[in-house]
């Protein structure tokens, strides 16, 4: 009885060679899992960085628009001031000529 059990165990637990390519497949799977973990680890920081970059570019764009708008406003005021000054020059001449 004991001999039978021992023989059965020996038969069941006998060393078996892995099939061809088994080691390669296991190592490939390990490497893939590592890459996946690395990607997952960088996903959140990369998302935050992209969001920050987007926010900065939007902010800079708004600032640029604001600068251009204020510059255009200043130019309009200057243009109308000059126009008014010269119109006034003509007006003064007309007024002096008419003696009023």
């Amino acid at each position, binding site marked *: 009885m004991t001999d039978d059990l021992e023989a059965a165990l020996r038969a069941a637990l006998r060393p078996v060679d892995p099939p061809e390519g088994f080691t390669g497949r296991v190592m490939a799977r390990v490497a893939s899992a590592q890459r996946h973990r690395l990607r997952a680890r960088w996903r959140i920081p990369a998302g935050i960085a992209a969001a920050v970059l987007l926010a900065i570019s939007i902010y800079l764009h708004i600032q640029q*628009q*604001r600068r*251009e*708008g*204020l510059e*255009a*406003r200043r*130019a*309009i*005021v*200057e*243009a*109308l*001031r*000059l*126009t*008014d000054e*010269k*119109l*006034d*020059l*003509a*007006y003064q*001449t*007309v007024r*002096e*000529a008419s003696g009023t």
Partner: protein
Amino acid sequence: MKLSCIGWLFGSLLLSGVACRAAEPRLVLPDFSDLTKKASQSVNITLDSSLLVMAGKFLDGDDPQDAAVREVIKGLSGIYVRSYTFGEDNAYRQSDIDAVNAQLTSPGWSRLVQTKDRKSGANVDIYVMVAGEKAIGMALIASEPRELTIVNIVGSIDLDKLRKLEGHFGVPGLDAATTASPPSKQK
């Protein structure tokens, strides 16, 4: 002979091109780079319709001056100013502004006001381009011994609103503009 004919033809085409463009309320302002170099102070303002719209957003409606400016630029499609101040008298020549005057002799432009002040030597010419009963363009040339200013405003101009900017300038109404004699080219 053949070359001179080609030159004449080319010149005619060029002149007719200039004449065609001159019928627009927007003047083709020369480069004036020589005047810029000579001037002690120069102002070069080019505002097209998109810049006018953008600037309008930055005008404060609660500020009286900004509100007046907003009223003036409503309906305008361009403001172009070239102004040069010199350190000495007669730093520029009449020929410098001949190209501008030539455009103002074309049909469509009428001289609204011409003033000459012999004492100060300041001359101001104001032209308008009228379509229907509306002024669609205005040009102003102010030549003083030490200053030359050219203003071209394009679009629907309400001179009353322009007057309100400082509140003390009055120009003849647009009726006068339509009956004004055709401008003559100044030499």
